[in-house]
């Protein structure tokens, strides 16, 4: 006797699959929030002259949530969260795409900066053209600059086996210097007291919703669809995933790992460049020499939490974007430094990487492993070959 294929078990198996995918990240997030609460309680002991408030963690988290989401009629807090999410989403897609191919793009930071300066440079050129020409041109400038900054480590790895972890970290610093030199040199407004570029004018993204909700939000959301399609619906995406999961199999199947490496890194760079483009065209409209960002490193956290999957990255970037956006209200109303978000972010990752321990503790047999890295970075780091042999 076989059981009839009723819809109920199917729904249950879908739920089980969903649980398998999300159990580890969810447990990591909950545990990190608990650790954060303990840290807040402990830090109360450090702040002098205040009565000990056992409910401070709750107050802090409520303020964090309020800052990120707000109360229903107000739309601006949510828009603020989305604006903070967009660069994290694009950066996370960049790092995650690299992960899928077995490449560790620590260079999102530099590619972001180059994207920002590229978008400003292109935007200034066309600042008085109609928006329908100026915006695509400026976006192209930003993505191209980012793509070049991703292409360099890609071609170096393909030709000489120089590991992308080392070269992209170095390129991050080169990008900082190059950025400052360009802002103070060719792009500087003459006679300004400190280096600043002109405004991008008509190349600025139009505001679509609320305070500062610019076109970049839609572009970032669109990128999720494009990357999902590219990874799972095209031959190129299949080759990228194969090369990441099993480089030997990819080679035996006649794929060209070197070409894949260069193309993947250039796409990673273009995505991170698009993140920088969005920040500049959507929010800043010009840059100064003190322009800085932590998006590049936050992106690594986003990609790891999102399991390198475009949809997972969307949720992970929403979480971190909401925390970044809500942190200032938490700092004002609960007196907890906004840097708590960095601590939470790191704690989430720690719990994710300590997967074997979590599995034992929570008896998660079916759950997928927490950090879904191809496990080839360190191997290629030392073999001197573009792909591990």
């Amino acid at each position, binding site marked *: 006797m076989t059981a009839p294929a009723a819809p109920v078990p199917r729904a249950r198996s879908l739920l089980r699959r969903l649980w398998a995918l999300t159990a580890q990240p969810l447990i990591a997030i909950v545990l990190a929030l608990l650790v954060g609460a303990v840290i807040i309680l402990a*830090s109360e002991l450090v*702040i002098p002259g205040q009565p000990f408030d056992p409910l401070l963690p709750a107050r802090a988290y409520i303020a964090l949530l309020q800052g990120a989401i707000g109360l229903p009629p107000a739309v601006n807090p949510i828009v603020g969260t989305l604006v903070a999410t967009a660069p994290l989403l694009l950066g996370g897609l960049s790092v995650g795409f690299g992960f899928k191919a077995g490449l560790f793009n620590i260079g999102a930071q530099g590619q972001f900066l180059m994207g920002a300066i590229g978008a400003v440079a292109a935007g200034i050129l066309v600042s008085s053209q109609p928006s329908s020409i100026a915006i695509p041109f400026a976006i192209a400038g930003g993505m191209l600059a980012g793509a070049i900054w991703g292409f360099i480590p890609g071609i170096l790895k393909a030709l000489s086996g120089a590991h992308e972890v*080392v*070269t992209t970290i170095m390129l991050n610093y*080169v990008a900082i*210097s190059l950025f400052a030199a360009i802002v103070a040199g060719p792009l500087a407004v003459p006679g300004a007291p400190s280096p600043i570029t002109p405004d991008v004018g008509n190349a600025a993204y139009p505001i679509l919703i609320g305070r500062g909700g610019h076109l970049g939000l839609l572009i970032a959301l669109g990128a999720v669809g494009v990357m999902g399609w590219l990874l799972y619906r095209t031959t190129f995406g299949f080759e990228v995933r194969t090369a990441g999961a099993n480089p030997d199999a990819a080679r035996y199947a006649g794929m060209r790992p070197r070409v894949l490496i260069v193309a993947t890194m250039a796409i990673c760079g273009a995505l991170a460049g698009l993140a920088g483009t969005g920040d500049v065209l959507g929010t800043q409209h010009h840059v100064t020499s003190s322009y800085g960002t932590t998006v590049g490193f936050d992106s690594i956290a986003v990609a790891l939490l999102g399991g390198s999957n475009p949809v997972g990255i969307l949720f992970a970037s929403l979480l971190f974007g909401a925390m970044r956006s809500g942190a200032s209200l938490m700092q004002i109303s609960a007196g907890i430094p906004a840097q708590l978000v960095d*601590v939470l972010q790191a704690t989430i990752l720690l719990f994710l990487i*300590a997967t074997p321990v979590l599995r034992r503790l929570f008896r998660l047999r079916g759950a997928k492993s927490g*950090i879904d*890295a191809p496990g080839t970075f360190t191997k290629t780091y030392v073999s001197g070959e573009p792909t591990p042999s």
Partner: protein
Amino acid sequence: MDGLINALYGIPVAGLVFEFFGYLLGVLPLVAPIMLRVATPLTLAAMCGVVCERSGVVNIGIEGTMLVAAFVGWIVGVVVAPMIPADPSPIFGITPALLIAFVAAVGAAGLVALLHAWLSISLRADQIISGTIVNIAAFGVTGYLNELISKSSPTSAGAFGQFVPPKALVEIPLVGWLFNMFLNQGPITMSVLVIVIVLQILLFRSRWGLRTRAIGEHPKAAETVGIDVIRVRYRNVVIGGMLAGVAGAALSMELTNSFQEGMTAGRGFIGLAAMIIGRWTPLGAFGAALLFASSQAISQSITFATPPGQLGDILLSIPGQFWDALPYIVTIVVVAGLIGRSTPPAADGQPYEREATA
């Protein structure tokens, strides 16, 4: 002699290159002490890298380890100094509080390294991800605590002072500036050369060094002759972390007397680059760190001792950012093998799994 030099400088283009090198030789005694000071945290970070990677563990968490040490050294000094009031001793301005803070900084760095060791050796997590997480965590925790503490505007416990070498020694012609370079320094900077030489000897001439290199090249073979791979790797990562801790302490307790958020500013990564260029040897890495520091020294000396004539004009027209970026560009060129190959230990970065014993 002067005639020859003038003739050399007269050659078009190449003459300017000669003149540039002549200028560098001229300002060397002046900038050498600065160079060593800049190179100190880089060198110590590179030593951490050498000790870890020689035993087969990639550690890109050096940056975070240094940051934690810098913070702990500063904050322990702040807390302890009022408890043990003491006048700074004439040698290096040492106070008991500073010593306790230094030990705390090195210890804290050892603990951070222990976390990396546990993640990458015991849990066999990807070592580069583990190191990245250490960096993110260190930045977050130190930034959070610093923000919390700086509300009460704490007073620093001060910093280690510089030794002033006797004038007669410094004024010896030709070699006097070398004494000035190595002796006109605080205790951490002064001991860097000693640490480098001791590590070089230990790594290549001692039992510990042989074991370290063996488990970094071929752990399985090492295990068959009775070396406990896991234990030696743990020990090396912690020792390396403590060296990074000394580097962090140098930042907040010797080169400055305060802590700023993210004050390591990439020095841990430059240390790794120095290690690669120095081909995983302590002396080589020290040389590379000095080379990196020289780039900064040149850019400083150009502004305070501008060479005369055309050379000065050319050097002044180079944006300062070029000198900032130069070490990183050099690293990329070397890593890409454009100037000779740099080959890491064979088992570097590979988690070791003991075979099941019957």
